[in-house]
């Protein structure tokens, strides 16, 4: 099967193809017209590989569609939507949970996404279902129709969200509302909570449902345009899209639940980091993706991507499965500044890409970490991003010298100081990510991907006591590669409060799991890959009685009495791992049952990953040398190597700089680089 993956970023579009057993990569400037950009990418890959349409055509195209949903939110350009809720509860979306993400500040902005639906478009409907699913007040169908008619007539809504209290137990009123609205207003796009996110806690559910409606018209339009374009120019290619939980879904599945496209961007990178890590027998991985304004950090344990069920977009809850990842506020654009007390700091303000660091020559006047890397001699001004952007060292020197003079430091001292501070910040931030999850970073391999990581990864690893950094062959296009190796997935969930899991009715639970599985199976039969078996992963979200948060525990099939006991034991064990204590005397509850139904992505053969490697391992000569200052080695004439010249088995001792089109790798004294058989580069970071 042939696959093309297209990762659309703000500046560049990365394209990866796995065609006739060979991996291809390409990079192109992003087009303002995203649909056209995708089609151009497909055409570029078809032209390069010479695949003939119709005969041996591309079967599948995987896309990162994140930008559409995320941008609609960031720019506040989603649809005008209405919201039907239960009478007495119409404001739950705006009231939120009252907690603040920023303390002390009297000028902080709101915490809840009330802007999605202003009060005039929130209506409380006369209906009520209680916490056990019993109808207390019947649905007032006339009111539903009249209110929606008014929203259309007066406010011209483009989509509608429906979220009634306790609909996760009994969806009857939501489904009936959807049905009568479908008959009365066939063109109105409707999101209902029991389909989008049938899980308890009404604020989080109404947010998810409202976000779904808010982006629905845009996502539907985008997907339909892409399908049309592919039918016209894509020579029979089928469209699939990445979801935030790291799985791939069909166009129809995406249109049915647009909210699951939010934050799918970083997911592909994590999937890829897991893949290349596992291919090199590294199951415990800290992935770092250093960008301009921030760094994404993910943890992979036992070759498993961690999925979070309590995702957020910014500070808003967005309860769809998301690849567990944290963003820390240090990146290549982080700005150095001196506070009123005379203290030097880096970030969290960043120069972004416009105006960008001073060395970009786009009007940036503030000293950033990239400027420091130029002054230190790490970055080659003529070969930044493969030479696509020529850096201006004089501008970098100017801003760093100015900062240094205020601190009575030479420009080199100031630049080295900025670098050291940034490294220390990244290391401390990563340490906290691991502390929160109860793991020790020293037991992990760090994988650096994206363009910026190579400058810092080895130094950060040394601070953390991490022994090894791995830089894959094409770190800059790793996310596009991730699209090629993601499973095709669908996700089912049922909230089922079982107050004593140890005594759960095994037949009832088994029947619920079967229902979820057959639903997933039907969906994948209809939408999924041809001739690939469907498998299921069962989990349950469980907690100690009285807790307000759950842990997700794997569940065996079938759910019989021994499986039930293993589930309870498993919960105690995971609670101990995650929270540092467990109490087997305490009653354990089941809150949600979950099933992920999936079709595994075809494994790529090892040769495909390593591609063409230069011949012999012994003859390793630097391409050139340049003056550079390192935290440990100090200022030296550092040898500069070209990554693509380094053969398998090559060994390079630091201090050294290794350049490749999509990243620059800095190796200090006491560190050593080796090249693996598969072309991956390893830095041995500790003396």
């Amino acid at each position: 099967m042939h696959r093309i993956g297209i990762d659309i970023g703000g500046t560049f579009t990365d394209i990866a193809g796995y065609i006739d057993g060979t991996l291809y990569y390409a990079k192109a400037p992003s087009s303002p017209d995203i649909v056209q950009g995708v089609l151009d990418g497909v055409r570029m890959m078809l032209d390069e590989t010479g695949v003939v349409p119709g005969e041996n055509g591309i079967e599948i195209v995987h896309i990162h569609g994140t930008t559409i949903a995320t941008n609609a939110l960031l720019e506040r350009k989603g649809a005008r939507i209405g919201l039907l809720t239960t009478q007495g509860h119409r404001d739950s979306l705006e009231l939120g949970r009252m907690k603040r993400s920023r303390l002390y500040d009297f000028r902080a902005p709101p915490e809840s996404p009330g802007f999605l639906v202003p009060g005039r478009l929130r209506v409380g409907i006369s209906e009520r279902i209680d916490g056990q699913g019993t109808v207390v007040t019947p649905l007032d169908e006339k009111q539903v129709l009249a209110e929606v008619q008014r929203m259309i007539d007066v406010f011209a809504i483009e989509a509608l969200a429906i979220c009634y209290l306790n609909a996760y137990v009994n969806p009857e009123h939501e489904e009936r509302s959807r049905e009568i609205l479908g008959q009365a207003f066939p063109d109105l796009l409707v999101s209902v909570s029991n389909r989008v996110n049938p899980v308890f806690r009404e604020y989080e559910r109404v947010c998810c449902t409202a976000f779904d409606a808010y982006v629905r018209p845009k996502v539907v339009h985008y997907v339909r345009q892409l399908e049309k374009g592919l039918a016209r120019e894509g020579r029979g290619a089928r469209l699939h899209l990445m979801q935030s939980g790291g799985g791939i879904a069909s166009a129809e599945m995406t249109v049915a639940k647009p909210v699951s496209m939010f934050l799918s961007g970083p997911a592909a990178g994590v999937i890829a980091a897991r893949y290349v890590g596992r291919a090199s027998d590294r199951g415990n991985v800290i992935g770092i993706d250093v960008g301009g304004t921030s760094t994404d950090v993910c943890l992979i344990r036992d070759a498993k991507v961690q999925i979070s069920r309590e995702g957020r977009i910014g500070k808003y809850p967005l309860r769809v499965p998301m690849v567990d990842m944290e963003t820390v506020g240090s990146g290549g654009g982080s700005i150095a500044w001196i506070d009123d007390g005379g203290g030097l700091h880096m970030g969290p303000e960043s120069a972004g890409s416009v105006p960008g660091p001073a060395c970009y020559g786009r009007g940036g006047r503030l000293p950033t970490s990239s400027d420091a890397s130029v002054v230190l001699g790490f970055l080659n001004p003529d070969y930044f991003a493969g030479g696509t952007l020529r850096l201006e060292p004089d501008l970098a020197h100017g801003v760093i010298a100015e900062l240094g003079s205020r601190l009575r430091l030479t420009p080199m001292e100031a630049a080295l100081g900025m670098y050291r501070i940034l490294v220390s910040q990244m290391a401390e931030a990563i340490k906290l990510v691991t502390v929160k999850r109860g793991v020790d970073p020293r037991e992990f391999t760090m994988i650096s991907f994206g363009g910026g990581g190579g400058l810092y990864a080895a130094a950060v690893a040394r601070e953390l006591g991490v022994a090894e950094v791995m830089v894959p062959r094409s770190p800059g296009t790793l996310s596009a590669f991730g699209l090629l190796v993601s499973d095709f997935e669908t996700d089912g969930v049922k909230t089922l409060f079982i107050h004593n899991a140890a005594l759960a009715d095994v037949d009832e639970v088994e029947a619920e799991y079967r229902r979820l599985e057959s639903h997933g199976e039907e969906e994948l039969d209809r939408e999924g890959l041809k001739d690939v078996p469907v498998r299921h992963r069962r989990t349950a979200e469980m907690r100690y009685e009285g807790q307000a948060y759950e842990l997700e525990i794997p569940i065996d099939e079938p759910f019989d009495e021994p499986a039930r006991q293993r589930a309870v034991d498993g919960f105690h064990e995971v609670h101990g791992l995650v929270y540092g204590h467990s109490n087997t005397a305490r009653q354990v509850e089941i809150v949600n049952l979950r099933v992920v139904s999936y079709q595994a992505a075809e494994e790529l053969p090892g040769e495909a990953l390593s591609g063409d490697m230069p011949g012999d391992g012994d003859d390793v000569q630097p391409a050139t040398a340049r003056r550079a200052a390192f935290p440990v080695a100090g200022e030296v004439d550092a040898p500069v190597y070209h990554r693509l010249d380094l053969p398998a088995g090559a060994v390079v001792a630091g201090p050294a700089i290794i350049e490749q089109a999509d990243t620059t790798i800095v190796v200090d004294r006491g560190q050593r680089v080796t090249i693996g058989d598969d072309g991956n580069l390893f830095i041995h970071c500790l003396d």
Partner: protein
Amino acid sequence: MRQNEVDPITVEIIRNRLESVANAMQFTLLRSAVAVIVKEGEDGSSGLFKTDGDTISQACACPIHLTSMRPAVQSVTAAYPIKDMAEGDSFILNDPYNGGSHLPDIIMVAPIFHGDEVVSFAAVLAHQEDVGGQEQGSMSANTRELYQEGLIIPPIPWMKGGRPFKPSHDMVRYNVRLPETVLGDLEAQYAACRIGVRGYCEMIASLGLDVIESSLDILFDQAERRMRAKIMQIPDGVYEFDDWVDSHRKERDRIPVACRVEVAGSGITVDFTGTAEQQDGPINVNLAGTESGAHATIKGLTDPDLPLNEGAVRAIRVVAPEGSLFNPTRPAPIALRGQICQRAYDAVLGALVPALGDDAVACPSGGNMVTSFGGRDQGGEFYGSSDLTTGGIGARSDSDGIDHIEHGFTNVQTPPVEAWESRYPVRVLEHELRIDSGGAGKFRGGLGVRRSFEILHGPVRSCHRHDRATSSPWGIFGGKPGARWRSYIRRVNGEIEVLHSKEVIELGTGDVLVRETGGGGGWGDPLERDPQRVLEDVLDRKVSVQAARDEYGVVLGRDGLSFDEAATAALRRKMADERGPATWTFDRGEDGCQ
């Protein structure tokens, strides 16, 4: 090594690492804690302290703990000579009159050694689920003296050389209602202290104690200079303000709060002289809590991101006369200090309004409302749980206040309606914005909410508490006050019983407890509010048609979707003429004073 021998790069790296050690302690506490109030409510704080109690670095999830840890370190070192301490020791205390805050907050202090010498302390505070006393949760509204509030713990050893000190463990175990939870949380506190000890020792190993200690001096000075630079921007002067706290007594009286803020150059003195005497109900606040209130306000107004260390607080002095509400003496009860501490915070905010002009903010609605419910479900099984909600915050010079959000002193969450209804025999009839509760103004105060619970199976015993039932969240510079807080019971027979702000009540099947939280004060003359925004507030049901007319002078069009420009202009002229120019600074509503 002299101060100037540490380069600025090393100083910043040390600052960053100290912050990270405090955060790692805090994450460890939150991760390992058993109690929901710590885990979800984040009612805990962690930090590193010098041997004299000076704050090196603090991770503070709850501003009410801002300056509450220093006295704990000092009480421990006063009771136990540092030279007798050993690696792996830790001490606990909760006595509000000897280093603590209120009894549920147990603070643990552990020495950090370099060689044989104690060089600093790690300290961790956590709010316990129970420490004994009259009611489960140790937060009764009915106490008259500290002894009724629970187990009073002076500084005592908790761990000796890494092993539990049995007498202390037994003493706690047999005096609290939830021993497993409390001992579990103390274990989490010890784990967090150990993370602090390890982190600081690693820093000493890699950077050297001399370098760290010299850097601390520099960091304290930097934070102090940074705070003083902000204070310099506030005009010098003496600014006075007074306000009220609801009495804990059943009579609907209120008791005075007075605050005098003196800004002189780069320093501020906050003096609460004139505030009521200490009370024989649990509404007193000890000096550490009062200081936290004053510091949190000033930090919020000047430099919310200022690193938390000793230097940050040096520029501010807080005075409260002994024996007063804000500096009581033993055995005045203290459990419900949270709501009252908020009044100290408001008073400093109010005092600085004339000095700050556009940087001032109107009064937040008043804190949060906590209501516990305890009863038996249809199956006869006992249950107990607490509900939390809050009001809106005050308007700013450029934006409306936010509706239903924490005010800045605590940071907890409202439980989901569906959590209540799935589990307990109650039905939440309403949880909606309270129309017209935000103070009118050019910028409107944030709104409070109405949250009503119907009891499906009585009897239920409920302890509920809030404040600002007898005083208004004030508006400023022409802005109107936000609505006061109120709560009442609608009995099954239709009778209405209005409640006082702190009461223990009994509810029967079919009774409805209605709670309405206050709104934030408004900023600026309501007649200057953009009529379009008033219209939008009406459409969004934040302001009624009548209030649009009476408060804002906005006349709506016949379609209800527009405003009548000519009629609005005429009405506003007429109202302005009758009223005169809006020259007053504060509006405190009925029986307040302008």
